[in-house]
C-alpha cells in the first residue's frame, strides 16, 4: 500500500461511552457509514492522521513517477512508450487529486512538499528500489500496482469524503496499470530465453519489497485499531498481504515464473497460501533512508523543486502584473 505505518496520536481506542458528546456524534456517523466532509467538525487527531496518510499517499505517487519514468526514453516499442507515458502521467494526476484532498484538511501543497523534501514526510518504501531492466516496468505494474489496488479498493469506502472520491478515480486507472504490467510480463515470459530470464529476475527482486508494501503485521497496533475505528483503514496489513499473495501466485504460475519463496505452499485448511516472512530489517532500513535509491529519489524531487523556483516565481509575478494592469485600466475607465 502507498501509505505505510501511519501513526495516530492515540494511546488507546476509546468506546462511545468514554467520548464527549461532539466526538460521540462524530463516531456514530462513521459507524453508520456516513461520509465526513471538509467543513464539518472532526477530532483533531482524525484530521492529523488523514493528513499524514493522504500526503504520504500523494508523495508516493509523485516519487513513484521516478522509477518508471526511468524507462520511458528506453521503452522498446512506440506503443509501450505511449502506454508508459500515459501511466506515469496518471501517477502525477493521482498525486494532484490526493494533494487536493489533503488541502481540504487545512494544509497547503507547498507545506506538504516541504515535509517531503526535508525528509519529515514518508513515501512508500517500494519506490526506493531501482528499475534495472524493462521487465521491472512489467513487475511494477503487476506487483506494485497490484498491491496498491488491494489497499485502495477498500479506501473508496473511507469515511473522509474527498479521500474516498479521489480513490474512486484512482482505482479505475490503477487496474489499467496493473493489466499493462501483467501484459509486459506475459510477453516477456513467452519471449526469448533472455526475455524470460529478465522477467524472472524482476520477479525475484520485486517480490519481497512488494509484500513489504503492506507494512509489518499491525494486529497489535493501536494506530491501526484507531484508523479502523475511524474507517480510514479497512483491513489489517496481514489480511491484505494474504489476499495479495493468493491473487498473485496463480498469475506467476500462469506466466511460468517462480515466486522466490521456498516456504510458499497452498494451505487447504485455511484456503490460502502459507508464505515466508519478508526481511523486516530491510524494510525498516529502507524506511529510515537506507534503501538502494532513497537518496536519488529525494534528490531528484528536491532538484525539480529548486530548479523550478524561477518558473513558479515567473508565473506568479506575471499574474500579479496582470491583476495590477486590470486594476489600473478599471481606474482609468472610471
Amino acid at each position: 500500500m502507498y501509505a505505510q505505518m501511519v501513526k495516530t496520536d492515540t494511546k488507546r481506542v476509546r468506546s462511545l461511552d468514554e467520548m464527549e458528546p461532539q466526538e460521540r456524534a462524530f463516531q456514530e456517523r462513521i459507524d453508520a457509514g456516513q461520509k465526513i466532509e471538509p467543513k464539518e467538525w472532526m477530532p483533531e487527531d482524525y484530521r492529523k492522521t488523514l493528513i499524514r496518510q493522504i500526503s504520504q499517499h500523494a508523495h508516493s505517487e509523485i516519487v513513484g513517477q521516478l522509477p518508471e519514468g526511468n524507462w520511458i526514453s528506453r521503452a522498446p516499442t512506440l506503443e509501450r512508450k505511449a502506454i508508459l507515458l500515459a501511466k506515469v502521467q496518471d501517477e502525477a494526476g493521482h498525486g494532484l487529486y490526493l494533494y487536493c484532498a489533503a488541502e481540504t484538511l487545512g494544509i497547503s501543497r507547498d507545506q506538504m512538499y516541504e515535509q517531503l523534501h526535508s525528509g519529515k514526510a514518508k513515501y512508500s518504501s517500494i519506490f526506493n528500489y531501482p528499475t534495472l531492466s524493462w521487465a521491472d516496468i512489467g513487475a511494477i505494474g503487476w506487483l506494485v500496482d497490484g498491491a496498491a489496488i488491494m489497499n485502495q479498493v477498500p479506501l473508496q469506502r473511507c469515511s473522509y469524503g474527498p479521500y474516498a472520491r479521489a480513490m474512486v478515480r484512482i482505482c479505475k486507472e490503477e487496474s489499467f496499470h496493473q493489466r499493462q504490467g501483467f501484459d509486459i510480463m506475459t510477453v516477456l515470459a513467452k519471449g526469448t530465453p533472455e526475455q524470460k530470464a529478465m522477467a524472472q529476475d524482476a520477479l525475484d527482486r520485486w517480490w519481497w519489497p512488494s509484500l513489504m508494501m503492506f507494512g509489518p503485521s499491525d494486529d497489535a497496533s493501536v494506530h491501526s485499531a484507531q484508523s479502523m475505528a475511524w474507517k480510514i483503514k479497512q483491513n489489517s496489513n496481514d489480511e491484505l498481504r494474504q489476499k495479495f499473495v493468493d491473487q498473485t501466485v496463480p498469475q506467476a504460475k500462469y506466466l511460468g515464473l517462480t515466486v522466490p519463496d521456498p516456504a510458499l505452499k497452498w494451505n487447504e485448511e485455511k484456503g490460502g497460501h502459507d508464505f515466508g516472512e519478508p526481511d523486516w530489517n530491510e524494510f525498516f532500513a529502507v524506511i529510515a533512508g537506507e534503501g538502494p535509491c532513497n537518496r536519488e529519489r529525494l534528490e531528484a524531487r528536491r532538484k525539480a523543486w529548486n530548479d523550478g523556483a524561477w518558473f513558479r516565481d515567473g508565473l506568479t509575478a506575471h499574474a500579479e502584473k496582470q491583476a495590477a494592469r486590470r486594476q489600473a485600466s478599471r481606474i482609468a475607465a472610471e
Partner: protein
Amino acid sequence: MGAPASSPAVSAAVAEFALRMGDNCLILGHRNSEWCGHSPALEEDIALANTALDLIGQTQLWLGLACEAEGKGRTPDNLAFLRDVSGYRNLLLVEQPNGDFGRTLMRQYLFDAWHLPLLKALMGSADRRIAEIAEKASKEVAYHLERSADLVVRLGDGTAESHARMQAALDFLWPYTGEMFLADALDEELAATGLAPEPASLKPAWQEHVGRTLADATLKVPEKSFAQKGGRRGVHSEHLGYILAEMQFLQRAYPGASW
C-alpha cells in the same frame, strides 16, 4: 493545393514526407518525456507528458503512413528503432537538449507555431491519408500552441530572471528555426503535386504568431538570421546519436525479440 487526386498507395515522395513529419514528432516527444517526474510544477509535469503522448501518437500515424507508402513491409517500430542517425529526417530544432524548462517551452512554442499552420495546410493534401492524419493531429497541436504561447508570454513578462531565461532560450534556439522554411527537391515535388504546401508559404503565419507572442512576452527577436540546417537530409547535430542510443537500446541489444 490542387484538387484531390487519387495517390498511389506506394509513393517514395509520400514515404519521405511522412518520415519527416513522424521523426519531428518522435524526437520532440522523446525530449519532452525526459521531463517526466522532474518538472517545476505538478500541473506542468502532467501537461508536458500529455504533449509528449500526443506527439508519440502522431509518430505512430506518420510512420505508419511512411511504411505503407514505402511498401517494403517495414513497421513503424522498425523505422523508429532500427534507423541510424543519417536515416532520421527531423528538424535540428527538436533534437536540441532540453536545457532549463524555459528552453524546453521555447523550443515547443517555436515548433508549435510552425506545426499548426503546416497541419492546417495538409488537411487539404491531395493524399487523403495525409489529410486525415493532419486533421486529427491539428486538434491536438492547436492545444499545444495555445499552451506553449501562453507560457512563453507569462514567463517572458514575469520576473527579471524568467525574462532573462526566456530571452536566452530564444537566442539559443533561433538559428534552428530557419530550417523549417527551406525547400529541397522533394518539397518542390510535394508542392507541385498538391501533397504538401511549399515550406516558405508557412513563414508569414509563423512570423505573425511569433512576432505577436514575443512582443506580448516582452522578448526581443534575435537579429541574426543564419539557419542551421541538415536534419531533413539526415545530417544532424551530435545530440541525435545519444537520443537514438538510448531509445533504441532494447531493440539493438535483443535483435528480433517481440515486446
